[in-house]
């Protein structure tokens, strides 16, 4: 046991509470209460890291409880390194999405690279082999050189890490908006698979069991990373020392060695050292195990001499793991890590006292009850207030919006905008084929990876529309999930579970918490409605620089299951003379659309409505049709509306098949009919002989539909009944515009 008096004497005088260890006055008082004394400087550093927003979720916790987390497939919900769902055949899928926003603004290459490294470790620390990576990115407009620099470096960082690891980056999404110029977002998603019995969790069990450190040596990089990520940014250059440097080669060794050691059955628990490094991994493992952990920092492999205990405890050096093994099996565990040329050291043991005890050789330098760092950490119910501007931005005088002079030109403009245009320039840099499982790669509605030796495949998509969330956080949140699920259905997959990354501004602003609470509510309602439980996730707050925050940006990563994987279903038209059907209907909804933003410079109005019953019906009809194999293509209508969806089905057509479309807008404005973003719409093409069956399925689902036209020709022709002019663009021209929209900024 520690001598509390000795600890207090060690510090000599009350700590000065350096600015690098931020805790509020109230939090400091709470620390004293929990400790029964003043903390010393090392202890304060540990508290400051563990009680940071990033590690403690103190502002978001009360809201996150709303998420449904249970369901037929769920094996492991939130609270572990990643969520786990049963996908049949003895297999489980392990996945999570996480942010690395702040580091990526400060040092984009390493920030993004280590984001990928961190999410990979979260997956293989569960005993699963990572099989797919995706990412969701937000940048400012590309005509600003700094934004191009950030994007180019972020992409290079993601590519450099994932490619070297041999984990394919199979998909993602990117939006551009001025609001992200000072706060780019980098969210990374990883999916792993394992046999159900291979799953290992992160609990430190068994008093006396050795606590083992493996992986890279600890250095001074990434110190205060967690606290940096829990504050607004000022001058980004000042914070560069808080960003870690990635080493994907070591991570690859760590991956193989960890999976090998876990198969021995000698591992009780294992956790990656992510934010707050050794501190969070040790205290969280002890917390889950209902135990204590004692660590001697002098035994930690170090990169440089003279590191203090405090630096050891909060360093965020990458590619490190903490594991608890069965006592007596140390030599066998060590042999495996030595085979992979990795550092390994027994640095402590599991104790029964529920304390985190940090020693430097014989001297105790910190001792804190584990609960004080975990379950007793502060939880805030932050004040909530509707933003003053909310009513204003939700209002839209549609009468004042002029119809475009040329609808063809409007479509060209949309196809050329970086948010909608092809992301090929980006995913060319990602190895999306390694592991030879990629049935559908980047560029479609969702990616699909098969599981070798089975007829199972998993579809994955990441999604989120922050303009909708700005205008109506509830529907914005719900639509993120509806659209992600719709994307999965378009490749023939049944959505089964979700991971979320909630990117918001400063939680101390009541307006931020208003949008946060509503987003979570909308997402939760959608999860309930679609029966998609949340199994893992991450919250990133303080995405503000000098008082300017981002739009509320919840990103969801949803996985879907395909049983009996045969022909992949994709978005491009396949053959001529097939019938094009719109499942769902188009309302006069222009609010929050890309069309309004790009052609009328307005980000306002009410976002499209979401009717859960209609959405479920549309998805049910398409999923059944996809499973029966009667569809030739399926594509969701999203940004840019029906016209862009049709154009993309031509552009993505392997044979460059065009389409002849006749639309009856009825009483709706022509621009809303073409470019409005009404939800719950999927465009499919179907051979004549299967049309009756498709109609029967749609009618069974009681959802509206319309036959739009037929595939064929080498252009997209859209005629609006009783209106002039219409759209006429050749497929080759659309391909050109679409392929260059983003790429041109980097040539």
């Amino acid at each position, binding site marked *: 046991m520690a001598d509390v008096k000795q600890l207090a004497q060690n510090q000599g005088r009350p700590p000065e509470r350096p600015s690098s260890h931020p805790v509020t006055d109230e939090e400091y008082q709470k620390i004293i209460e929990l400790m029964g004394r003043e903390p010393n400087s090392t202890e304060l550093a540990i508290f400051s890291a563990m009680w940071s927003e990033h590690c403690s979720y103190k502002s978001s916790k009360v809201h996150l409880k709303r998420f449904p987390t249970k369901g037929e497939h769920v094996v492991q919900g939130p609270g572990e390194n990643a969520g786990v769902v049963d996908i049949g055949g003895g297999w489980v899928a392990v996945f999570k999405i996480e942010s690395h926003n702040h580091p990526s603004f400060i040092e984009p290459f390493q920030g993004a690279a280590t984001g990928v490294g961190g999410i990979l470790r979260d997956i293989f620390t569960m005993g699963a082999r990572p099989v797919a990576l995706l990412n969701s990115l937000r940048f400012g407009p590309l005509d600003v050189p700094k934004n191009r620099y950030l994007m180019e470096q972020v992409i290079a960082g993601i590519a450099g890490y994932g490619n070297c690891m*041999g984990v394919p980056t199979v998909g993602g999404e990117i939006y551009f908006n001025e609001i992200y110029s000072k706060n780019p977002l980098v969210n990374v998603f990883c999916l792993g698979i394992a046999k159900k019995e291979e799953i290992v969790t992160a609990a430190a069990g068994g008093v006396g069991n050795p606590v083992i450190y493996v992986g890279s040596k600890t250095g001074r990089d990434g110190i205060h990373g967690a606290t940096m990520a829990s504050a607004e940014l000022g001058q980004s250059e000042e914070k560069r020392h808080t960003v870690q440097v990635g080493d994907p080669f070591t991570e690859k060794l760590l991956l193989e060695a960890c999976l090998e050691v876990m198969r021995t059955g000698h591992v009780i628990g294992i956790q990656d050292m992510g934010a707050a490094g050794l501190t969070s991994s040790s205290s969280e493992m002890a917390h889950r195990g209902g135990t204590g952990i004692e660590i001697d920092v002098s035994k930690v492999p170090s990169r440089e001499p003279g590191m203090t205990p405090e630096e050891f405890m909060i360093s965020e050096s990458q590619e490190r793991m903490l594991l608890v093994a069965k006592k007596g099996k140390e030599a066998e565990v060590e042999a495996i890590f030595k085979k992979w040329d990795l550092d390994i050291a027994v640095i402590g043991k599991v104790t029964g006292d529920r304390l985190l005890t940090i020693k430097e050789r014989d001297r105790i330098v910190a001792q804190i009850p584990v609960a004080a760092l975990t379950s007793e950490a502060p939880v805030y119910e932050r004040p909530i207030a509707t933003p003053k501007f909310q009513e204003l931005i939700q209002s839209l005088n549609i009468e004042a919006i002029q119809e475009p002079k040329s609808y063809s030109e409007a479509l060209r403009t949309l196809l050329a905008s970086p948010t909608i245009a092809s992301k090929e320039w980006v995913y060319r*840099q990602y190895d999306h084929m390694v592991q030879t499982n990629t049935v559908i790669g980047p560029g479609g509605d969702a990616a699909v990876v098969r599981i070798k030796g089975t007829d199972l495949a998993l579809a994955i998509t990441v999604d989120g529309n922050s303009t909708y969330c700005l205008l109506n956080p509830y529907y914005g949140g719900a639509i993120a999930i509806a659209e992600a699920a719709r994307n999965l259905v378009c490749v023939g997959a049944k959505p089964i579970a979700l991971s979320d990354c909630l990117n918001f501004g400063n939680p101390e602003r009541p307006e931020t918490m208003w949008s946060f609470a509503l987003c979570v509510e909308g997402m939760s309602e959608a999860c309930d409605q679609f029966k998609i439980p949340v199994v893992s996730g991450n919250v990133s707050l303080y995405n503000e620089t000098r008082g300017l925050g981002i739009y509320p940006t919840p990103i969801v990563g949803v996985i879907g299951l395909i049983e009996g994987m045969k022909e992949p279903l994709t978005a491009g038209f396949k053959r001529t003379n097939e019938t094009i059907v719109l499942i769902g209907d188009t309302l006069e909804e222009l609010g929050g659309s890309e069309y309004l933003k790009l052609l009328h410079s307005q980000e306002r109005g009410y976002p499209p409505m979401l009717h859960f019953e209609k959405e479920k019906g549309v998805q049910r009809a398409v999923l059944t049709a996809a499973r029966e194999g009667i569809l030739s293509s399926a594509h969701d209508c999203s940004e840019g509306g029906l016209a862009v969806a049709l154009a993309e089905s031509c552009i993505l057509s392997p044979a460059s098949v065009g389409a002849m479309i006749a639309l009856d807008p009825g009483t709706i404005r022509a621009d809303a009919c073409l470019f409005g973003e009404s939800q719950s719409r999927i465009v499919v093409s179907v051979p004549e002989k299967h049309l009756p069956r498709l109609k029967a399925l749609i009618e069974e689902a009681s959802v509206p539909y319309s036959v739009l036209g037929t595939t064929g020709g080498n252009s997209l022709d859209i005629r609006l009944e009783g209106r002039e002019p219409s759209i006429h663009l050749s497929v080759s021209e659309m391909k050109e515009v679409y392929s260059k929209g983003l790429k041109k900024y980097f040539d």
Partner: protein
Amino acid sequence: MRFGIVVFPGSNCDHDCRYVTEGLLKEPTALIWHKETTLPDIDALIIPGGFSYGDYLRAGAIARFSPVMRAVVDFAAKGGFVLGICNGFQILVESGLLPGALRRNRSLKFICKSVFVRVENHRTPFTSLYQPGQVLSLPIAHAEGNYYIDESGLARLKERNQIVFRYVTKEGALSDDANPNGSIDHIAGLCNEAGNVLGMMPHPERVADPLLGGEDGMKLFESLRRRGTLAAKEQPAYSNPRV
């Protein structure tokens, strides 16, 4: 036919290759750890893609010094079939089993996409089941695939018919646009003078399974199996591809 696949710590296409040789071709396949100094009894050896030792230096520059490479060089010298794919090609070049060098792509970026290559020499043990001049769709995934060799070296390659694959258009024509990385003379793959060592940047193992959108790579492994099976029955183990 027995395949061996060298596993460097940073190899990441080792299992993809094994899936083709063992899973699809149903041939016994041994994974050979880079710290081994001898090879098991095999007929053909694959050096797979990946980042052998991280490739923070020039790709493959460290791998050539690994313990297993001496055994690989011996195996090749005795006429064993050696196939280096992507990083494996880089390692073969670094270790001197193939001439020339692989520089960074002219775009200075990693490129992953399907490209078209033309079979320039169908008389190698690796290409015998392809038609002469056949155009294949194969994926590439590399940052350093820009093949270079000096003028006399190039003349020598041509004279000895060592250029096995060239980047071409879909129609099979040579064009600068169809050359993804800037390789000299559009070279995508080449063999040694004896013809038993092939290095190539494209990944044939990624298009061996129809579910993944192509099968153009499968015949390369089938060619190798056919030759290996023949070689097991007859002597010599290989023959000059010029014959």
